[in-house]
């Protein structure tokens, strides 16, 4: 086992979304599986160019909504039928049409919480410290610049090849990112 590379990644900086998508595609084609791309807004097709899998957030959200609806309905059924049955003019205790609004609201509430936290946790946030934050120019990633990082931990990483690959994509600068 060789010692870990003291650098986290090689990073290239671009000034357009098209250049970044092309570079991400090139990295993918060269076999990189852990390349990361940074952009100041959501670029269509960038995550796919890096080889991101289909998100499971919609499935989680569906489950969250179903659980929320079931919990909401059970809550009302249990309260109105089991725990505190209240007979009013021989009307049925299990009056399901009246339970619909709260069931609906609970469905939305749990589904929304699931979507929100699935996105945050899926992204590994909150994470206040990260190697890229110390990289030169990276404060522009939230303004008008686009970055591609080839991670040194990537099995496909080979320094001369990575340098050549990044330089071939015509970045406006190339840097090393410390761990």
């Amino acid at each position: 086992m060789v010692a870990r590379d003291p650098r986290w990644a090689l990073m290239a900086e671009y000034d357009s979304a098209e250049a970044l998508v092309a570079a991400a595609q090139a990295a993918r084609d060269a076999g990189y599986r852990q390349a990361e791309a940074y952009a100041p807004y959501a670029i269509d097709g960038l995550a796919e160019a890096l080889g991101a899998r289909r998100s499971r957030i919609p499935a989680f959200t569906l489950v969250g909504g179903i659980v929320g609806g079931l919990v909401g309905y059970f809550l009302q059924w249990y309260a109105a039928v089991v725990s505190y049955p209240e007979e009013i003019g021989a009307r049925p205790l299990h009056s399901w049409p009246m339970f619909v609004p709260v069931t609906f609201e609970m469905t939305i509430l749990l589904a929304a919480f699931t979507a929100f936290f699935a996105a945050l946790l899926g992204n590994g946030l909150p994470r206040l410290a990260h190697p890229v934050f110390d990289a030169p120019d990276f404060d522009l990633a939230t303004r008008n610049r686009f970055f591609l990082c080839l991670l040194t931990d990537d099995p496909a990483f080979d320094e001369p090849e990575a340098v050549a690959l990044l330089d071939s994509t015509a970045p406006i600068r190339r840097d090393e990112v410390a761990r």
Partner: protein
Amino acid sequence: MPSPRTTDGEVLRPGWGYASVTAKIAGLVLSRPVRWPWLAAFLATLAMTLVYLGAMTWLFIKGVGIWGINIPVGWGFAIANFVWWVGIGHAGTFISAVLLLLRQKWRTSINRFAEAMTLFAAGMAGLFPILHLGRPWFAYWLAPYPDHMNLWPQWRSPLVWDVFAIATYLIVSALFWYLGMLPDLATMRDRARTRGKQVAYGLLALGWRGEARHWARHETAYLLLAGLATPLVVSVHSVVAMDFAVGNTPGFHSTIFPPYFVAGALFSGFAMVLTIAIPLRRAFQLQDFITEVHLDHAAKVLLATGWIVAYGYLVENFMAFFSGDRFEIAMTVDRWTGFYAPVYWAMLACNVLLPQVLWWRAARRNTLLLFVLSIFINLGMWMERFMIVAQSTSHDFMPSSWGLFIPTRWDWIFLAGSIGMFAWLFLVFIWLLPAISISEMRELVKEERDEPRPPARGSSHRSVQHGGSDGRA
């Protein structure tokens, strides 16, 4: 200065780049000098907020008797204000969620502050039912939890549905707002020059760094929240409408109420969006972002929803006579000719007559006229809520139990106080947070660049002027 003609159909004037959009919006928070009009507005609304808090304290000491409510009118201003504020709170989510799903580009520059407006309006709304409780210290009894008394909320009551609807609406709106703002908070963190601001925005941004997979998940979740918020918007005011419609009081008991309330909510909400957007774009020179097109579209929504509201009024009157119910008829005639008739006719003038000016394009593009009109619509919608709440109960079944509601000075203080606190919260928001979504504006810049443009606009030299600053400096 381009002629007004060239801005037709544009939701972002040409010449803006990623960096200049970022600098402009972030600069409103980070480097805007404090000027006296803003300071005066801030201090005035802060004073109103403090008066409001003081009035609440007095209310909790003395009880709801300080208001003009009594039997038969037990609901009065508090519930009218509640319904009014909930309605105003609807436009934000409508703009953010429904227009996002419909891919309406013009939502981009107005969604953030409209969502903030929603949160604050819904917050103001949420206070009133609690203030209105005879024993507000038992407000937590509304929550379902296994208690020592073995009691549960009455699930068959729309008032309990209301608790769930409003609470869900507040929470989901806040999640939607915060998730959408996360990338912008990162921008603020990276643009801030002082350590304190960097730490504060940095903590709020949760370490957002704009990675491609993060953006993809963010977008998925944002769309899902929009999809969830869309039926939620409709459900909230429908439930509020059922607070009334499920009761058998003449003037309440009507199946038109849920759709009529939802349309009224959008109507008053868009009016409030205009009331806020017009001074905002003027005060902070945002005319390039919030263009005449935005105002024009919002005015069209006002016109359309205004007609749905007018249809609601028509159906209410028609059904009273069509049903042959003498109590409904008596209540309707009382609306036309009784003690509250001036309020009724003023409401019709504000909500039905005045908005017809929006059929004219020149009116939809006249900012001063739109601003004044939006105030009248806000006023008209408040009068509508007041009519439904107070007039209906003042004139129900037995003539012997009829009675009038006359607001006391405390009623007016609570109405004015809630408006002051709403405005103050909004000023705090534009002081501390980006009022327009920066990352979505960058996307808009990109889309506008990719779209082929007629060459004769002179946009090329303007793009040097703003977009040329895309460098490091």
